[in-house]
């Protein structure tokens, strides 16, 4: 098979720091190429260079064997090289259809052909098996829905080369399946695909060719079937990984958080739950089940929420972030770009933003720097300097910074929405261990995750949400994929909804 797009001897520097060292890499038609590596290894940087969004400092990008002089992403796109970025690239004020066709609008004469674009967008989304309304505004969509729009946008480009930067990180298994189907289809059509992912099962399932990156250099290459998931992890991290999930040796204490009949208009109906000290409570469900809304309501971030909530027996007013904060509740958002980090501000300012009152009336810069050092060490944040803007961190390192920021408030109750989105296997382990350690110290943890193995491996108890309600609870040894999926899809329930008709439990 011919090599369509190729990097030859590419290095890239940001300021004085060289993040890629002499990368050689080729994408072939009809083949899926997976790029894996730790957070900050340089995966996104490689993809941006391939897509024309960044120029290599040294070396060349070759398209069909001759130097490709892309000076910009759009130029590359015009030549059939399309990138789905790790950060979202959607205009929040425009609708789904507008975004999908932005820059390539369909027109009839001078007039935009709204109907055709809506139809085409609807078809694309249909193929992706989502129910997103093409007329919805991006700002009103949930994070996974936005990711699906991003994928639809890329698919609409009829690419020869499709490069996907962690396309599945923000998706639940339902959309992931749709994505896989598209990948298989495109491969069959002879498109050259590249993706990166921290889900190694996915890599094993999809990739025809694997390139492993460590600290900006290629450390190993393999073709389909040559590497097991464990071997991938070892190659990435450079050492053996054992015991992925730490043991659940929980000693559950007294009730820490009690929520009764919590409702968020349009998203959550009468949710009740209790959380004990030392417990990790998982919340599972499909996209749009209302998990994020529930967590945000508990954290006081949803105006208009009703119900009752107590922390250690003390009533906490709803819809009041600061009261929730004072009661020791902290929420780690799934939307790190829009709600989590100030992308243009230095790492240190981001880290201490939620806990500034602990740094004195005159902010103690030295103490801040110490906190940054500690966080860098504890959460293994790979950054060139604490003064760099958070937006220049690699995706996974942003997530680690967000985690560090949340923990700096020293909460009693931590609600973590998608704790390991975009985090590499090595660090995932550290984070799981960290969560267990927090629980062991007597904190209460709520983990919302779309990765079922994560919920299963981590939680002592799992609540399953479906259409804004808590559909049921699984505990102890019954925490299995099947048990959760059944509840999440409402299998056995009386009414037959879309999901039920469309797919069977995995």
């Amino acid at each position: 098979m011919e090599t369509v797009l190729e990097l030859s001897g590419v290095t890239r520097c940001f300021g004085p720091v060289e993040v890629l060292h002499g990368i050689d890499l080729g994408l072939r038609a009809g083949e899926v190429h997976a790029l894996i590596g730790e957070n900050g290894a340089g995966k996104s940087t490689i993809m941006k260079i391939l897509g024309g969004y960044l120029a290599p400092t040294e070396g060349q990008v070759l398209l069909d064997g001759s130097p490709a002089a892309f000076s910009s992403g759009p130029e590359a796109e015009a030549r059939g090289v399309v990138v789905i970025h790790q950060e979202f690239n959607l205009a929040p004020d425009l609708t789904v259809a507008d975004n999908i066709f932005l820059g390539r609008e369909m027109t009839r004469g001078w007039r935009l052909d709204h109907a055709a674009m809506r139809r085409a967008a609807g078809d694309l989304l249909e193929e992706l098996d989502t129910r997103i309304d093409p007329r919805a505004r991006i700002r009103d969509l949930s994070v996974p829905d936005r990711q699906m729009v991003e994928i639809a946008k890329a698919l609409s480009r009829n690419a020869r080369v499709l490069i996907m930067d962690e396309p599945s990180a923000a998706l639940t298994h339902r959309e992931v399946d749709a994505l896989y189907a598209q990948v298989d289809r495109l491969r069959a059509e002879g498109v050259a695909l590249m993706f990166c992912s921290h889900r190694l099962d996915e890599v094993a399932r999809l990739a025809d060719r694997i390139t492993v990156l460590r600290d900006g250099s290629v450390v190993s290459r393999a073709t389909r079937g040559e590497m097991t998931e464990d071997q991938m992890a070892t190659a990435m991290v450079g050492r053996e990984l054992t015991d992925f999930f730490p043991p659940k040796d929980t000693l559950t204490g007294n009730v820490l958080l009690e929520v009764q009949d919590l409702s968020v208009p349009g998203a959550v109906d009468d949710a009740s739950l209790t959380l004990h000290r030392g417990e990790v409570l998982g919340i599972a469900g499909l996209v749009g089940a209302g998990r994020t809304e529930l967590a945000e309501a508990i954290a006081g971030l949803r105006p208009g929420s009703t119900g009752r909530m107590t922390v250690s027996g003390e009533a906490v007013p709803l819809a009041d972030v600061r009261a929730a904060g004072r009661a020791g509740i902290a929420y780690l958002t799934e939307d790190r770009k829009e709600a989590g980090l100030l992308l243009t501000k230095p790492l240190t300012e981001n880290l201490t933003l939620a806990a500034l009152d602990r740094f004195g009336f005159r902010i103690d810069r030295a103490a801040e720097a110490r906190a940054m050092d500690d966080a860098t060490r504890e959460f293994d944040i790979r950054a060139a300097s604490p003064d760099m803007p958070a937006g220049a961190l690699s995706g996974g390192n942003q997530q680690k910074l967000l985690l560090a920021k949340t923990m700096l408030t020293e909460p009693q109750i931590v609600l973590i929405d998608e704790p390991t989105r975009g985090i590499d296997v090595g660090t995932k382990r550290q984070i799981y261990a960290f969560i267990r350690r927090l629980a062991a110290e007597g904190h209460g943890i709520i983990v919302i995750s779309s990765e079922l193995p994560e919920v299963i491996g981590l939680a002592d108890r799992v609540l399953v949400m479906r259409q804004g309600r808590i559909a049921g609870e699984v505990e102890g040894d019954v925490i299995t994929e099947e048990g959760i999926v059944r509840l999440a899809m409402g299998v056995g329930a009386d009414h037959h909804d879309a999901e039920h008709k469309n797919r069977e439990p995995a």
Partner: protein
Amino acid sequence: MRRIDFHLLGPLIALIALIIIGALLNPAFLAPANLSNVLARSAFIGLIAVGMTFVITQGGLDLSVGSMAAFIAGITIMAMNALVPITGVNWGTIIIGMMVAMAGGLAAGLFNGALITRARIEPFIVTLGTMGIYRSLVTWLSDGGTLSLDSGLRTLYRPVYFSGIGWITWPIITFAIVAILGEWMMRHTRFGRHVEAIGSNDRVARYSAVDVEGVRLASYVLLGGLVGLATILYVPRLGSASGSTGVLWELEAIAAVIIGGTMLKGGTGRVWGTVVGVLILSMIDNILNLADLVSPYLNGAIQGVIIVLAVVLQREKRATDNR
């Protein structure tokens, strides 16, 4: 659609309320003659505000429009006066004058736009600078006084402001056409779509192969052209231009745009909201003149209160917007 309607209702309700108040205060308010006056007066600011909607929607701002209008009116009058001895008092001369106005507007818009997009200076500063420049130039050209159009030409040119189809005069017709075209451009053309995309997130637009600088530049040129058009309608009204022509038009135009529901930070443009905003502003003035109030000194205060109230009606929506 369902959502948009609701959002637009705010200023529309305010406009309807104003019309009702006006009619109650003085029956003459609804007479065609008065409506014709109010609408024709709105036309200058209206044309400019339609252009301003595009500029604000793409994330820009233009403070220079008022003095730009004065300056263009000045050069148009000077050009026509200079031509009279050569071409005589006829429509040919006036049409050349109109072309000067249009060309002047487009050039001034291009100048603003080029400084903003090519030299990458904040629009606020560029247009604050050109505002001072145009204002000074017109004062200088008129020697601190007034530039007046040749009286023969004036007589010929007057009907462009004062006549039309019945009481629907040319300024009203022009404004209506431009408003409809503007709304259409914003909603149904690639240009409008790109303007919104750039205002919403210019990096995304750039990544989507939108010619960000080009579209930005075009929005300033469009605004400049509309300022030129407004001048073409303004000159026949009083036949003069001076250093005090068009003072504070920029503020009025920007206010109309924002009252109409376009956000100052860009991203969504509502041309027809802008039209409603312009009408609200000129009706307030008209009603204050028609009604007998405590003291004319307080007109400004009443105006201020009404402007705020007109926007309060939009508030509900935004409160829920705020996740």
